[in-house]
């Protein structure tokens, strides 16, 4: 994947003479010291990040960690005190007023925590705003706006005003307004923090759904670890204006960079972060549908397991065979086809443990894990689902007993 946004050594300091404070930060003084000595606030210090095209990149941190300041640097709502911000390899910090306007109009759109809607405009006029600014003809912008209102599920509300809508719906308007400009990059500043938990969950799923279809590059700010790990392809953790760690949710859980992050992720609901892929066992034992029961028995004996998946040439699961059935089949001279069982569960490798739990409870057999092409990539024993909730290295510490 290509790099969409790259920021290098970006610092943002607030106060009358921000540049003079940079050496102090370089010498390692803390935010509080600098504030009391010089009356300058360090928003972000020396942040460097690379964000790839099409990924959901989450910046996570507590309030005051500088995450909102940093995201406002991406579209220069905050002009960095030092550093460069490259969008498609062009340093936008060096842009003049007109160039900046153009980038904001065409490449980047933003969604705000408290929605930032224009209360004097109807929903339609709100969504049209970005297009209106670019002088797009009336019919065309109406058409685009209506399409985007439909995407976020607000069809029929075009002529309402923001104050007539619930919080969740208002944020949908915010999203539609941002999408209407068809930007490459979507900046989202705690977009769901002001919503209640149920609506928040719904909006997260919908965002992922929309992202699946539209494939934008999304920079998402949140203070909620669970939210960060659920929707982020990669996550950056910020503290006191510093970026402390960048990685995929799994990487951060597996190897927190410091105690602060360990503390941060202590409360994380692992069942919603760890995916099937991470707790599955690579299938050493596999039986092709052309093989006979004897092959199946040998496979199971060698691997010390009591059932084995049967696959076709494309590694697609055809069924499962148990050791008892196989022995019976050998005695009665039956084929593998006759003893194939179909009451197993298939899960996708991206599914979270929380989704696996009910399936694991229902099924007598291991869960078959498949990839996008329906190929069998592994299996999960019931015990792994539970141990996956507490420890990191399930796949190594195992006996295969069903």
């Amino acid at each position, binding site marked *: 994947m290509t790099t969409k946004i790259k920021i290098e050594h970006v610092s943002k300091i607030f106060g009358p003479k921000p540049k003079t404070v940079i050496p102090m930060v370089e010498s390692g003084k803390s935010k509080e010291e600098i504030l009391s000595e010089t009356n300058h606030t360090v928003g972000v210090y020396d942040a460097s990040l690379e964000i790839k095209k099409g990924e959901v990149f989450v910046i996570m941190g507590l309030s005051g960690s500088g995450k909102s300041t940093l995201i406002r640097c991406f579209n220069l709502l905050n002009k960095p005190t030092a550093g460069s911000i490259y969008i498609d390899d062009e340093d936008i910090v060096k842009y003049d007023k007109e160039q*900046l306007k153009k980038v904001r109009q065409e490449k980047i*759109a933003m969604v705000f925590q408290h*929605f*930032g809607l*224009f209360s*004097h405009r109807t929903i339609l006029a709100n969504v049209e705003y*970005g297009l209106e600014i670019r002088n797009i003809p009336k019919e065309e912008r109406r058409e685009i706006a209506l399409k985007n209102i439909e995407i976020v599920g607000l069809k029929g509300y075009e002529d309402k005003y923001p104050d007539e809508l619930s919080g969740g719906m208002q944020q949908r308007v*915010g999203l539609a307004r941002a999408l209407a400009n068809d930007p490459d990059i979507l900046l989202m500043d705690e977009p769901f923090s002001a919503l209640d938990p149920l609506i928040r969950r719904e909006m997260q799923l919908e965002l992922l759904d929309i992202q699946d279809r539209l494939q934008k590059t999304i920079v998402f700010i949140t203070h909620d670890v669970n939210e960060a790990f659920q929707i982020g392809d990669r996550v950056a953790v910020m503290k006191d204006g510093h970026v402390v760690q960048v990685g995929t949710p799994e990487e951060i859980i597996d190897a927190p960079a410091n105690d602060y992050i360990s503390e941060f992720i202590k409360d994380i609901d692992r069942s919603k972060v760890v995916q099937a892929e991470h707790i599955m066992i690579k299938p050493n034992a596999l039986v092709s549908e052309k093989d006979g029961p004897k092959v199946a028995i040998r496979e199971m004996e060698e691997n010390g397991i009591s059932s084995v998946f049967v696959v076709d040439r494309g590694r697609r699961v055809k069924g499962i065979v148990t050791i008892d059935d196989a022995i019976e089949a050998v005695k009665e001279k039956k084929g593998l086809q006759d003893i194939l069982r179909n009451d197993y569960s298939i899960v996708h490798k991206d599914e979270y443990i929380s989704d696996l739990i009910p399936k694991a409870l229902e099924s007598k057999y291991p869960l078959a894990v498949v990839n996008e092409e329906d190929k069998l990539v592994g299996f999960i024993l019931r015990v792994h689902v539970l141990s996956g909730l507490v420890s990191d290295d399930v796949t190594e510490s195992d006996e295969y007993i069903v």
Partner: protein
Amino acid sequence: MGSFPDISTEIGLYVKNIVDFLDDSLEGLFDFIALMSSRTINGIEDFLVWMPWWSFILVIFLLGWYFKTVFAGVLYGFFIFLIGTFGLWEDMMTTIAIILTAVLICLIIGIPLGVWMAFSKGFSTVMRPLLDAMQTMPSFVYLIPAIFFFGLGNVSAIFATLIYALPPVIRLTELAIRGVDKEVIESAQSFGSSRWQMLRKVQLPQALPTIMAGVNQTTMMALAMVVIASMVGAQGLGEQVLVSINRIDIALGFEAGISIVFLAIIIDRITNGVAGKFQKHRGVN
């Protein structure tokens, strides 16, 4: 020993000289302003007097109904009818014309100044004491230069009224523009709005309810100046009050006075109602 030392400054004299100088050098400009304002006043007044009496009452009733309630509309119509029965119909129209013209000029000058103050801290710092002075300086003081510039008559009255009534609309415009939600501004910026687009499409509309409150204040203050303005030759209800004082005519004084009160109530409620209509949908978050 304790008495003030013999030091004197002649600031009053300097001001007088400045006024003289302005009067000489800018005569053309003042004449032009005088001409334009008197044309506006006369135009409005002629129209109002030309209107059949019942149709004016009907308009007031409809405004009251639309912006307030049916009852309010009936009441306001009745007030206007009463003023007519006092024999002050044409005086009322003159007063309304003067007030409308003054408010119009206040808005034309005041709103841009308020916007400028909201954008420029420096300008705001300069303007604030000036606005304080305009509101607290006794009005008689600037009636004198007004006569110098524009002569006796309605135009001087408008000038004096402007000085007194301008501050609220300027102040509230500044306050309103500054008070627009920061995230709303940011979101307009994030879409790449130009400064002008931002002002026209976001800041002014968002600020409108508060600006309308300023318009209401300005209108009320213009009305409060009616009597004082008549001292420099403004006609209308104020003139009648002045006449009644000179003649010690209690009856006329009361009738003209209560007419001003009626007008004040009607204008206040209607402009308030207009502000209320603007408020709808704008006060979220």
